[in-house]
């Protein structure tokens, strides 16, 4: 397929998000899947790139056979043909033991050190918005080896510091995770509808890896509430391929519940 044809493929921002997420999962890895967009990314990865991926859900299901997109981390489609269904303490315990490679999360806010807020917007005592609370997110980010975050990219969703730290990233910066006693490696990738970000090894701050087609690093900076590190080697994110979109639209989310 030449470039002209590739550019003609139409896709929505959320479809791009799902495709970028799916490409980050390596075959054979175990992925602790949180609710929301991660369900879509994980299922696409499973069907497309990582047939031997092992999904873990906080309800206790491990390694189900993916079929249609579950909307919940605990419904019957989530643990379709799972060989084992454990208790909640077991799946988190297994993550601490070292059986969870990747944690896959969403949330309302993420800050420059990758801390995530899913509890309150505004002052905790007098919240402007009360959100869901941690659920399994805190445990997933505390215990899994590396964490992928997916969310929409807006200045208030990417603040310098979260209003409430529900889920640990690098906390206050270098060495803070170790000082706090956390075991997992911390945040690894952030996927938004504008770009793919990682974290600087020394400063632990969020840095751009690639910008999505149609936007520039400058635009991403404008939509980010803190100074985003932009290395010289940033590239444009490869577009979703026709095959990725076909699987996404026909097999993963045929009703377009999430990816619209």
């Amino acid at each position, binding site marked *: 397929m030449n470039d002209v044809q590739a550019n003609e493929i139409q896709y929505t921002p959320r479809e791009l998000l799902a495709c970028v997420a799916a490409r980050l999962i390596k075959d054979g890895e175990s992925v602790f899947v949180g*609710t*929301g967009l991660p*369900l879509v990314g994980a299922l696409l990865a499973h069907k497309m790139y990582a047939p031997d991926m092992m999904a873990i859900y*906080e*309800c*206790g*299901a491990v390694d189900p056979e993916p079929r*249609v997109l579950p*909307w*919940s*981390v*605990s*419904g*019957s*489609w989530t*643990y*379709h*043909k799972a060989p084992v*269904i*454990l*208790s*909640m*303490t077991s799946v*988190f315990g297994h993550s*601490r033991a070292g059986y969870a490679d990747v944690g896959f999360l969403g949330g309302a806010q993420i800050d420059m050190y990758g*801390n995530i807020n899913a*509890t309150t917007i505004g002052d*905790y005592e*007098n*919240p*402007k*918005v*009360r*959100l*869901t*609370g*941690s*659920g*399994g*997110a*805190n*445990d997933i980010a*505390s*215990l899994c080896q590396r964490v992928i975050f997916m969310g929409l990219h807006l200045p208030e969703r990417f603040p310098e510091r979260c209003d*409430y*730290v*529900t*889920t*640990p990233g690098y906390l206050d910066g270098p060495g*803070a*995770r170790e000082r*706090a*006693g*956390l*075991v997992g490696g911390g945040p690894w990738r952030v996927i938004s509808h504008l770009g793919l970000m990682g974290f600087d090894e020394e400063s632990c701050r969020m840095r751009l890896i690639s910008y999505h087609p149609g936007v520039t690093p400058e635009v991403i900076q404008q939509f980010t509430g803190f100074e985003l590190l932009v290395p010289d080697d940033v590239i444009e994110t490869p577009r979703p391929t026709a095959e990725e979109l076909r699987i996404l639209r026909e*097999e993963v989310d*045929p*009703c377009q*519940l*999430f990816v619209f």
Partner: protein
Amino acid sequence: MSHANERLFDHALAREAKLKKSRAEKDKRMPLKDAIAEFVQDGDSVIETGFAYVRGPMAAFWEIGRQRKKDLVGIFTPGGMNTAWHEFGGMEGCHVAYVGVEMRGLIAPFRRGVEAGTLKVYSEWSHGGMALALLAAEKGLDYVACKSMLGTDIMKTNPYIKQAEDPFTGAPVCLVPAMYPDVAIIHVHHADKYGNGRIWGPAVNDESICVAAHKVIVTCERIVDTLDIRANPYQVVVPHYTVDAVCEVPFGAYPGDMPGMYYFDRRLQERVVRVEWKTPESTRHFYDKYILGTKDHFEMIQIIAEEEGMNVIEYLKQLEQLACDAAYWGLGSWGVGGERDWKYEEVAKRAI
């Protein structure tokens, strides 16, 4: 009468409650109405089992609303559609790990209550953290040391957990005390008349919750002979000696999911969460019409079925059987199985 929070982490009080319980195999069957009236008292802390909208005891929660119980303290790990009746004085505070219905959104009455300060959040938890508090109660541990919640604002907004130094390694750990809710309501597939409860699908925290709670109400899809349970005790998550009441409530998890039996009523859930509960007035209307205006769960389902113009239960059974491959798993003897009219390809086209 002490506040529910003072009882929640009291090891001695919890033991006392259990020493008083009869170990005899006695018939504990009773109507749901009577069980709620007798065992859920105003001011109690209440924990639900399953995963809120998966095998959650929904019929029991509607009944609590119907009986206008007051000042309950919710323990939400997670909390779903059961959180709404606080707007009418039903609930004064809560301990929160998660409240919402995932992709279907936030629970508006919960949000309104916390934002307005009428519903107190006594403590924040992670799912794993709260599960460990219940596990500690089950395993006879005063507290457990874990690696969740460290370094975050949860440590500051939960007065019950503590950071400490691991005496073996010197590393920081989070100490989580054993938690003993006043009442647990557990919905299971099968129970015998003594209260032995058997499930299919994820137990989540049920094995812990039934031992942790002072009082346990088991609601079940079907009462089965005790010999049936004794012949296959491997799926039993609730032992009879923890149970105070057994209520046969078919479709007791509706509109949630009952693994192997019926799927979520997605349309009703979305309508309720996004429309019916959008304002305090519409929530009141929902309660007046569906909860206070009906005599029981079945009348409520009947109204919903009439509104949706279809046999809701049959539809959800079909969806669920495909999800679980009921025939494949040999669930026929559970009253599930049977002919499957639908194929995956068709289901994928339906918005589940």
